[in-house]
């Protein structure tokens, strides 16, 4: 199949970027989106032009490294997919695709389609952990946890930190990301020790890193590859208010 790609090229965060058009032919519809970009980069290498830089790692939908906004949709047209799991069969032969980086003030462009998402790491560092003894892993069944609670905590824990929620949000809010971690740990007994501090620290870090306020449009949950629920945002707000009321 043939595709016309309009790709955002930008030297670094300080320079202005622009769309550059590339035409690719002889593509297989079974190719993944990132493989298609590999093909483009090989052709650019042959011509001696600089490669289009983009993030990726596992290419299995588990690491959260791949990003991209394709025709206005974070991670492409399929809902709840990562870009690496998106295949060319999701597009029609002859389509024109506009490929942009995730855009948010907290995600400065490193180069082309690659953005710096370390602001999300800072949020995790602020409170996305539990206190536990170092050494051997404890016996898994030492603390019994109800199956439903374990399942629901796992749904929140599934967040891969990709940042698609931020990229999609009109306010560049990372509420879904923060809430996934807050909800995950608040649901489990191991997370109870820092329950109050965690949410206050993480919301604080979220604001310090320059993310916006959630206005509940719900766009984030529609693109989240892990289907993290908006309910988690409600849970985070509950935890925040609870912490504000009871913490010293």
């Amino acid at each position, binding site marked *: 199949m043939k595709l016309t790609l309009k790709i*955002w090229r930008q030297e670094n965060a300080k320079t202005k970027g622009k769309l550059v058009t590339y035409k690719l032919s002889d593509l297989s519809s079974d190719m993944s989106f990132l493989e298609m970009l590999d093909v483009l980069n090989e052709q650019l290498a042959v011509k001696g032009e600089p490669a289009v830089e983009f993030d990726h790692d596992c290419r299995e939908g588990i690491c959260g490294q791949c990003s991209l906004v394709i025709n206005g949709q974070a991670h492409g047209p399929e809902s709840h997919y990562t870009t690496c799991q998106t295949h060319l069969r999701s597009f029609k032969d002859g389509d024109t695709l506009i490929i942009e980086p995730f855009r948010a003030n907290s995600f400065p462009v490193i180069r082309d389609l690659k953005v710096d998402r370390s602001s999300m790491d800072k949020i995790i560092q602020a409170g996305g952990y539990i206190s536990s003894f170092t050494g051997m892993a404890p016996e898994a069944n030492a603390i019994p946890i109800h199956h439903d609670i374990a399942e629901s905590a796992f749904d929140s824990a599934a967040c891969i930190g990709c940042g698609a929620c931020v990229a999609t949000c009109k306010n*560049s809010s990372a509420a879904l990301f923060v809430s996934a971690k807050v909800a995950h740990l608040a649901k489990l007994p191991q997370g109870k020790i820092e329950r109050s501090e965690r949410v206050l620290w993480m919301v604080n870090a979220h604001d310090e890193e320059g993310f916006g306020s*959630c206005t509940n449009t719900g766009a984030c949950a529609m693109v989240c590859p892990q289907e993290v629920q908006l309910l988690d945002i409600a849970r985070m707000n509950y935890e925040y208010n609870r912490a*504000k009321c009871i913490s010293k």
Partner: protein
Amino acid sequence: MAIKKGLFKTSVGRKNLMAVTGLFIIFFLIIHLVGNLILIIPNSFFPIEFWGGVANTHDMYNAYSHFLVHFWPVTLVAWVLYVAIITHIIDATLITINNWRSRGDKYIVTDNSTSTWYSRNMGILGTIIGVFLVIHMAQFWLQYKVLKVEHDLYELVIVTLKTWWFVLIYEIGIIALGFHLVHGIESAHRSLGIYPKKLMNVIKYVALCFSLVMAILYAIIPIIIYFK
């Protein structure tokens, strides 16, 4: 890094403030609607004289508004309401400015299918409501309650609503209010964290039905008066 102390200084706290003030304003909207509905009670509804010689819609409405202005607990709630509205507006402005700052460069294409247009445009809807509120208050509240130049509020309302363009302004304000409410009610519950899984859909549908009923009732009153 120190945690910001103020309850309303964080991204979550500011939204809490929006929710609390918004829900209070909704409580007032219900009371206001009850008053408005008196306007469309037919005169035949008054077969006998009520207390104080209230014999028709005209008397009933004026007695009601007189009561509101002269009963001190109502005045107290009214002051809370003014504070709530002003806080709601200031807080919304702060949130919006902060959110604009958070946003990076504009996307060349945006796909808007992931959210409703009214949830994305609460600020614009709010501004329309705000403009309407200023006109509305200048027309009635200022004349009747502050300047006290008008003593027959019923007459004032009827005369005003005989002007087609004022009815139009009224309708635009109400439509904006309806959409603002649909998103606002659900959003407020989520912002406050009062949004349990079991009640999630209940909140959603109650918000929708409530907003619809409010908007329809508010909207038909000026139309009925205009054509009467």
